[in-house]
């Protein structure tokens, strides 16, 4: 169940580490049992998941911005309807994920406020701009493709509410990738200019998309415990390789060139990519990507401009509740 209200009153041992309970907890994880909100869990497990699920939620919400940018400029009504539906889905995914994160004990408002204050992160991919219509195709094909690759193993994550949210998200996400690829197919079958536009978008998105899987295994700081707790089922590099192997034939079908001259297929059939520029990743993560300031400003503006709606809805509900109590008393 998703609810935070069902959490029993905060128990005194909630933030304490307890070796005996931790061993029992690990035994449950090893037996592939799902952990539910009211179960005992190590404080670090709660903290890691709150961070990961809320970042995931923020990413869905901020992810609406680069695509929302093109809703009014979609080339046909069919494309416009699809893009609107996709952006609406992302909003829903954000809400499922906030609900899952809340079961760990922080309210959605606290989580959102942390993001607006710049204290919580979202996926760095959304700090890149969408310059042409081909970017919308590329985002669906590659960004959503990479997200699916990450999210499918999360459907078996040890934390029940997160796993259930991921099942729902993955079901909806497959339309996103297909509509993106369809845009790319259409552009690549079009004029020379359209195909060049598709190639340009691929050139700009390829490396940032590979960075979406996170730092290489040798340097990733969260991987060991996350693997032990079965939050993570595959390493960053394993997922990245899976993604590259799945994507190369799709690019070949489109007749597009992956912007990595060093890429080659090894004896086992895996496409080996060149060294990733991790300084760029760190720069974007540190707030210096092309659109970081824009995205944060847009989120804050939307939150502030929505304040009167939240206030009006709350005072209307309070007024009605008051009237009902008065009527009941008569």
């Amino acid at each position, binding site marked *: 169940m998703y*609810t935070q209200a*069902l959490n029993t009153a905060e128990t005194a041992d909630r933030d304490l580490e307890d070796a005996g309970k931790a061993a029992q907890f690990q035994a449950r994880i090893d037996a592939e049992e799902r952990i539910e909100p009211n179960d005992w869990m190590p404080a670090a497990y709660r903290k890691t998941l709150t961070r990961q699920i809320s970042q995931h939620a923020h990413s869905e919400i901020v992810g609406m911005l680069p695509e929302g940018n093109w809703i009014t400029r979609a080339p046909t009504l069919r494309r416009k309807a699809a893009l609107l539906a996709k952006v609406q889905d992302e909003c829903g995914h954000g809400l*499922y994920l906030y609900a899952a994160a*809340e079961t760990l004990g922080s*309210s959605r408002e606290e989580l959102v406020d942390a993001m607006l204050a710049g204290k919580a992160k979202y996926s760095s991919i959304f700090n890149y701009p969408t310059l042409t219509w081909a970017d919308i195709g590329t985002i669906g094909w590659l960004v959503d493709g990479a997200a699916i690759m990450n999210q499918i193993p999360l459907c078996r994550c040890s934390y029940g509410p997160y796993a*259930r949210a991921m099942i729902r998200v993955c079901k909806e996400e497959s339309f996103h990738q297909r509509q993106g690829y369809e845009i790319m197919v259409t552009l690549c079958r079009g004029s020379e200019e359209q195909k060049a536009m598709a190639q340009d978008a691929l050139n700009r998105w390829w490396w940032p998309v590979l960075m979406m899987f996170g730092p290489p295994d040798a340097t990733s700081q969260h991987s060991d415990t996350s693997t032990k707790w079965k939050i993570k089922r595959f390493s960053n590099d394993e997922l990245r390789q899976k993604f590259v192997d799945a994507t190369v034939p799709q690019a070949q079908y489109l007749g597009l060139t992956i912007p990595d001259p060093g890429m080659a297929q090894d004896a086992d059939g895996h496409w080996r990519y060149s060294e990733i520029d991790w300084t760029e990743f760190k720069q974007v993560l540190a707030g210096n990507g092309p659109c970081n300031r824009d995205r944060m400003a847009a989120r804050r503006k939307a*939150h502030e401009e929505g304040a009167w709606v*939240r206030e009006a*809805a*709350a005072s209307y509900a309070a007024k009605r509740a008051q009237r009902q109590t008065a009527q009941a008393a008569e």
Partner: protein
Amino acid sequence: MATPNTPLWEVFIRSRNGLAHKHVGSLHASDATMALQAARDIYTRRGEGLSIWVVPSSTITASDPAEKGMMFEPAESKIYRHPTFYEVPEEVGHM
């Protein structure tokens, strides 16, 4: 200023005629009408339901997982509550 909290609701959906309403998730809304509308938008965008219930999360009373043993173990030893506990001669056929 910290954003004030909006009440939490649990959402139950009947997916097909004849089936029970099933818990699908939760959402925030300031009142029941808005909770129903939000549930429609969040949980039934692809024809997932014929009917929706929304229930304030704070009104649900849940059993404590720590007392799982006390709650459910007594049933485990009562195998005579299952039909397979009883022997019926084969000649009688299916019963």
